[in-house]
């Protein structure tokens, strides 16, 4: 299991003392710290970058010049992560978007890269200015020069709102990023499960629409084993050509449970372990009031 907090702390240690004022244009502050040189090349389709390291410790990081700027920057930081964390590449041919199958080393490097591109202190200050929204994601992605998904995922992780960003592919939930406040409420989004039927995301797919929102999505639609109770705000985007759907969910301030929801009496060992074992005992001990 990936220790996300530990990876983020390593990234922050790596960044400590560096001048981050120009990282939106120039990543050399990171690249030089790992004794590497960054360049671009025309690489094959699907290959975003690679790193070669000599015996003297000097490395060459190369990113695919055919990919868009946000992706090239993420690839460069992902390669820096490989060097800092000392992690090898997984040599199986797995699409980078496939969260369900990706190697732990690659996911760890993605987490590290997101920290480099969206430094916690500055990013959190920006996020705290207003409530979550896709407009805020768009503004921040432009400022930090990152992809929509990377920015939304980070926003959900650092906001003080009980909030989650969910990435779905081919009608299946692939990845979810949750804020500390939401995790503390015992809210779990089921990985590898079908997109919940009552969600905005499911409606967009069903009706072939590109975007939608609803401020009255019952909390039990998204969170595993939760009772009905409060309503969530859900904003969703659907890209039929890529079979990708994103949802941003959150409780408005003072609009969600005040205490952890007692769902089934314990946290799962791993978020992506699939369904818990059935034991015949209903554990909805406490129902939150309906707003």
């Amino acid at each position, binding site marked *: 299991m990936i220790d996300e907090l530990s990876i983020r702390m390593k990234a922050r240690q790596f960044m400590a003392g560096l001048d981050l004022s120009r990282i939106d244009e120039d990543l050399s502050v990171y690249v030089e710290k790992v004794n590497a040189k960054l360049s671009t090349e025309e690489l*094959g389709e699907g*290959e975003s970058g*690679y790193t070669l390291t000599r015996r003297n410790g000097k490395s060459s990081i190369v990113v695919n010049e055919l990919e868009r700027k946000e992706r090239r920057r993420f690839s460069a930081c*992902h390669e820096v992560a490989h060097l800092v964390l000392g992690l090898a*590449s997984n*040599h199986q041919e*797995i699409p980078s978007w496939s969260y369900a199958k990706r190697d732990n080393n*690659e996911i760890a490097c993605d987490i590290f890269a997101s920290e480099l591109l969206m430094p916690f202190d500055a990013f959190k200050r920006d996020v705290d200015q207003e409530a979550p929204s896709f407009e805020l994601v768009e503004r921040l992605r432009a400022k930090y020069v990152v992809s929509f998904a990377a920015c939304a995922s980070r926003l959900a992780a650092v906001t003080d709102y009980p909030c989650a960003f969910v990435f779905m592919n081919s009608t299946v939930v692939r990845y979810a990023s949750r804020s500390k406040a939401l995790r503390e409420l015992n809210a779990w989004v089921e990985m590898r499960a079908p997109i919940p039927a009552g969600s905005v995301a499911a409606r967009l797919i069903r009706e072939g629409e590109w975007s939608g929102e609803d401020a009255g999505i019952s909390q039990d639609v998204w969170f595993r084993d939760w009772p009905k109770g409060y309503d969530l705000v859900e904003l969703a985007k659907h890209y039929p050509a890529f079979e990708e759907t994103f949802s941003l969910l959150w409780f408005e301030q003072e609009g969600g449970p005040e205490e952890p929801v007692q769902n089934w009496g314990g946290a799962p060992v791993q978020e992506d372990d699939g369904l818990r074992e059935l034991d015949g005992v209903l554990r909805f001990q406490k129902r939150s009031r309906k707003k």
Partner: protein
Amino acid sequence: MAQSSLGLLLRRLREARDLSSRELGQLAEIDHTYIYRLETGEKQSPSEELLARLLRVLKAKPREVEMAQFMLNNDVNPDWVEHVLATDMTAEMFEMGATMRHRGGGRPDMEAIEARVRRALEDDA
């Protein structure tokens, strides 16, 4: 049976000397069935002393000795070993290609990796 990169190197060196596993075993004073298992990947991670004895009998060149020592502690794609043996690449080039890190789903073929390694070293010159 899983292919072993070190086993592949040892087999290629043995074949180049035109020795059977049994003959190599006799010369190195190692059970020939152990040599067979090393070559097929059934046995991995021989001791450094045993590996050195095999390489000495096989008259391995310095490059091949360095490759074998590197493979004692690192997983290497057997296709890369095969490719390097057919070229004049140095042991450092072998290690660079073996430890190359990728991002994304696409994977370059062995010729492309060789070209990248050479280009990286030329950039330093």
